[in-house]
């Protein structure tokens, strides 16, 4: 196959041989945004749901704050630890 000029703007993306590391990065990006959105919905949803009729207290704080902020943050922290240390892959940052 003839070599393409780097400045060529008329080509097919299929001609490019993809880097598996970079494809993996895209997958991890989707995981990051996906899981974060769940965290966002959980926090906002729980906080608003638990306080819809009025505020009651647990452990000295409003129950919506305990479940919606403290517990969700703790649970998501565990999720993040698991994802980052077990699911995210270590890879060489250089082209070798």
């Amino acid at each position: 196959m003839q070599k393409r000029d780097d400045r060529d703007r008329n080509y097919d993306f299929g001609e490019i041989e993809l880097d598996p590391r970079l494809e993996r990065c895209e997958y991890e990006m989707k995981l990051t945004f996906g899981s974060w959105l769940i965290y966002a919905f959980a926090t906002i949803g729980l906080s608003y749901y638990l306080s819809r009729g009025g505020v009651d207290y647990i452990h000295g704080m409003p129950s919506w704050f305990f479940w919606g902020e403290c517990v969700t943050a703790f649970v998501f922290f565990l999720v993040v630890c698991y994802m980052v240390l077990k699911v995210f892959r270590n890879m060489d940052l250089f082209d070798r």
Partner: protein
Amino acid sequence: MEFTLNPEVRPVIVGTFAAYTVIMLVIGYFAKKMMDGTAVNRYVDEFYTGGRGMGALALAMIVAAGLCSAGTFLGGPGMAYRVGGTWVIAVCAQNFMNFLVLGSVGKKIGIVARRIQAQSFMGLLLNRYNNSKVLGLIGVLCIVAFMGSYVVAQFVGGARLFETMTGLSYELGLLLFAVVVLLVAVFGGIKGVALAIVFQGIVMTIAVVALFWGTLNHIGSTETALKTIAQAEPSIVTPWTWTMAYQASMWMNFGLLIVGIPHSTMGTLTYKSTRAMHRAIVIGAVFVVFWSLALMSMGVLTRSIYPNLKVVDHAIPVLTMTVLPPWLAGVTIAGVAGAIQSTVGAMIIVISSALIKDAYQTLINPSAAPEKLRKINMIATTLVCLLTVGAALRPPHGLQVLVIFSVGGLASAFFWPLMLGIYWMRTNEYGAIAGMLGGLITYIVGAGGYANITFGMHGIVPAFVVSGVLTIGVSLMTPKTPYGVIRAWFGAKA
């Protein structure tokens, strides 16, 4: 209630703060020594990326402490004092900022930046977008105008706090802040900032721990305190002060869009290995979750001690003076100073890299000799520092307007061009330029209230939509990005 300070405790606070400043100056001195030993031809690389050798703790703090500024330590708790629980929820959006930034773009930028030898945020975008001069100009202008004004505002906040707490003059406070930042950032580059930021992060954490513990001791039962607050002002203890739609848009603003902000993404250029990056995500989460939750709840709890503060930004300083012994209060003030200085340091590096690397080297004089580059870099970084301090001495008219728009403006201009540029081959410079301008203009119109386009949400939402649609739409209507660029950003290295 006005904020008054017992004159007897002032010397103690001054002493603690002076000790902190001396330590910072020593760190700055070491950073300078470190950079002095760098070979001339590696200087710029070391200055902006630390030779891509940062470890987990430094990276975690560059992202976390770089983003958490006076906003998290003064303004945020002030808002919690004024608005209450719903604001506390909004701030939780920033809890996992390290995860969002590093998890979404960190690894890919790590690989591509090494490949294309990018040393700055704009350098990445310029390479991806075919060295478009128009894009470069818009980007550099955005960074200089928005970040510059943000830096000025941080200096003003820091110096005012210094004035209030020590009784010494505003100008002296400004001078101390400026000398620390100048020494650390101008002479030490990103390495200096990293060294300082780790220490500042630790001081910030000690400050929050002390304040948290002191507050709980002082108040006794938080439940009683909150119930007392709720009796006078029921809206403080419920999330329903804001609608869920508005809350969700705040999460977009404080959470999702952080990825588009240059000084957080800058961290991705500096780390040494994926292992370090993974750990930085975990470390950052611990710190930011603790800072946000503790500081915002203290902002609310301040109401139970002082229900009628005139200046809500004084919530944390007032609380500090009430619940802590003077020397610990001094440490807390040092922690706030650390939050301000770390953000300012990181931002000054971004501003000067935009001016030197991107405006000067990439767009004006690509063949500049290393020695010349080093000199110009020094002069420009010093100038940025002096100009911002000068502006803080006498805050110009219109500064406040720029500050209000700064973070949202940066995010609405950069988020889509950055994300789509990294992960969608079809994005090109025309789309990116359209997306940047469209996002920016929509944000200013919406958030500025010039037209009612926000549908009861934060102004960032329409800007986000418009910018995304324009980036994709215009890209599809115009030619593909040149083959060589796409191969470097997506392809396997031949």
